[in-house]
């Protein structure tokens, strides 16, 4: 499993375990096992069994919303979570899940609304601040997006040392704004927090490439490629980097590797 799949699985497992109620305990435990094995359809079936017994089981509903989204049933996920949030306006987990589904469905404005509601009620919800940053960025509210990410970073400075997303997300945003030095610092911090994340090393390498610090960039990109051997992106940047350094043999090798990996990568859903 890559770190990303681990992250997704952990998110869902945590959801299932944390919310388990007596009537649904068995079904949600089973759902948890299925999520762990990436059997999302089976996990959904378990969750629905729970909901057959307790139709308003909040945690099960949130889990079902997440699973529907993972199965590509976005409209059903949205409808379910919207109903839940309407019924339980203070259900932070429901709002969080709904905000994520909105975000991934390219609806940043309602996503912002959900995350803003969460941070208003729970100002230390660092994940919501981080996601609010993403949603605001998508909505074109760049200064506010940066503020939200900065808030998330402040919240995880000491309390949640494992959380690297806020640093990485802000690094990526700042690179779009051509603030590559600050982006590099943030990517380094993200990599220190999570040294297994190929993305963190990639972002650092990319920022250094922009800054034309070629040899340093090469090291960060190489590490990124090592951490996720299936990711084509570091090899593309390495090929460009070697071309700039007039090292054609290495550039060709990286380009070939990039093309091979790119051909194997699945189509991305938009």
């Amino acid at each position: 499993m890559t770190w990303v799949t681990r992250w997704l699985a952990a998110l869902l497992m945590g959801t299932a375990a944390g919310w388990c109620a007596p009537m649904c305990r068995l079904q949600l435990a089973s759902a948890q096992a299925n999520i762990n094995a990436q059997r999302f359809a089976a996990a959904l079936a378990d969750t629905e069994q729970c909901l057959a017994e307790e139709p308003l089981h909040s945690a099960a509903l949130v889990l079902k919303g997440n699973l529907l989204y993972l199965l590509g049933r976005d409209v059903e996920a949205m409808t379910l979570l919207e109903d839940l949030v309407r019924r339980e306006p203070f259900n932070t987990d429901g709002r969080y899940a709904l905000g994520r589904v909105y975000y991934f469905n390219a609806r940043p404005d309602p996503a912002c609304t959900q995350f803003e509601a969460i941070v208003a009620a729970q100002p230390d919800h660092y994940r919501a601040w981080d996601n609010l940053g993403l949603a605001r960025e998508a909505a074109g509210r760049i200064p506010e997006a940066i503020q939200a990410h900065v808030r998330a970073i402040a919240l995880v400075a000491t309390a949640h040392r494992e959380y690297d997303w806020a640093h990485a997300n802000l690094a990526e945003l700042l690179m779009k704004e051509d603030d590559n030095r600050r982006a590099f610092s943030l990517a380094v911090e993200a990599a220190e927090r999570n040294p297994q994340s190929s993305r963190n090393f990639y972002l650092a390498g990319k920022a250094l490439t922009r800054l034309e610090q070629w040899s340093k960039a090469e090291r960060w990109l190489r590490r990124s490629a090592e951490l996720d051997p299936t990711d084509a992106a570091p090899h593309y940047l390495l090929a460009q980097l070697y071309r700039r350094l007039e090292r054609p043999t290495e550039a060709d090798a990286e380009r070939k590797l990039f093309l091979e990996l790119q051909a194997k990568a699945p189509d991305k859903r938009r």
Partner: protein
Amino acid sequence: MPCYDPGVKRSVAVSLVLLAVIAVAVWPQGMATANRRPQSRRPLPPGKVAPAIDYRDVAREAGLTAVNISASPRRASYITEVTGNGVALVDVDGDGLLDVLLLSAGEMAARKPRPQTLYRNRGGLRFEDITATSGIPPLEWAQGVCAGDFDNDGRTDLVITQWGPNVLLRNQGGKFADESSRLPAATTKRWSTGCAFVDYDRDGDLDLFVAHYANLDLAATARPTDKNHCTWKNMAVVCGPRGLPGESMSLYRNDAGRFVDVTAAVGIATPPRYYGFTVLVGDFDDDGWPDVYVACDSTASLLFRNQRNGTFEETGVTSGAALNEDGREQAGMGATAGDYNGDGRLDIFKTNFTDDTPTLYRNIGTFGFQDVTSTAGLAINTRLLGWGAAFIDIDQDGWRDIFYANGHVYPEVDAAAIGEVFRQPRTLFWNRGDGQFHDLSAAAGEAVLARHGSRGLAVGDLDNDGTPEIVIVNMYEPPSLVKNFAPRGKSILIEPLLANGRHAVGARLRLTAGGRTQVDEVRSGGFHISQGDFRVHFGLGAADSAQLSIRWPDGTESNLGAVAANQWVSVQQGKGVTRSRPF
């Protein structure tokens, strides 16, 4: 165009969906809500003041009123209905005024040939419809257009690409004859989009490059109303291009007026996996031989480097102009070339789908390109779906700005309440002169703010006042004729002609004024499925004159010395300046 894949149905592709989710989680992308302009975080540097721009749409007053047809404005059934059409700005009758040809598609069910509207320029930005006497036949499904004098008779001929047989129209002096039999027969069954005339072998006659989009089989393609329809953001939409068989591009050599398919022989043939749109010819390595860039939808774009021996090598990925900075394929639509940073090299700007930024590739020399979209300040807008684009010096300060037209592909988005809109405003980025652009869209006049489902776009000085206008094809509407009414700097229009009188397609102009040097080329096609002015426009700022040199398509050079500002200058190879007309 979008990147969904009709072959990846949700019901059977859980693992792919998971991977896709992971991909999105790893690379959170911008998303689209076209209702609001993004905020710019980069203020202008101290002392830098953006110019006043006042773009107004004067199409109606000018008489350009033909309504674009492309099947239903409410729901499309096939992807051919949403790709739109081009426009040509060409002096058809040799009276010194650019005439306007507007292409249109048709009705899907009837497939009835439709007139392609030709407007004669009467001067003073007034046009009259001369379609009936133009000799241009009604066509079933026109797409793009490019111009060039293929028979070297001094008159500009046209090629109209189609979903179906392409059409070669020989100019007989203001009236066209359909001489499509001069084109290779194999073109009849393909879907062609962009095209450009190019003298790739420098033998003195214009050859023809044609982009192809997809191998579309209607019988095998689901419609949105079919059970196995394709979806985008949970909305039933037309299928493609992903999932449709792709295409390769074509090059036809001009053999004494007949075009011979030399695609395979000269190295243009690729595996048929591309969705080609805009053909952009430019001498990107400044070696005197024309190269060809093709903006491709949902696949890597292509860059064919001229090997100076009658063959090409495809170098898109190697050169860095095929993908974005992260090595990702984008949905390329329009493309334009210009030297935005004044280093004497032609850079490339490409428009893409929504949820993505456009792309600016800086030409870094030795046939290398670097994606500098973010660095240049162009990564701020992911909410618009771009089509026709132009490097155009809007304030005539000597720096090329960027203008592009937008519009969603799916008419259905308006009713879907997913935060997307079909009609979208235009985008104008002002070149600050320091390698960065500033978004002026919100303050550049009603024609930039106006919302349309735009497609093809071409730039040309329609009223010969030294400032180019922009003509934009709008889906299901009349076109826009966009004119800047704000004060601007001085300018010059250069019209390079070969010794035989035809426009010197491929000539490279080098102009120095006010301590700066600008370069550009005479280009066939050059805009998204559209043809612009053969004359090359340069902004001169406050300079009263400029030093001009021209490298002709055969490689010879002419140094013209000083030419005065604010005039249209015709320069003929071997003769020098043959005519000057003040604005």
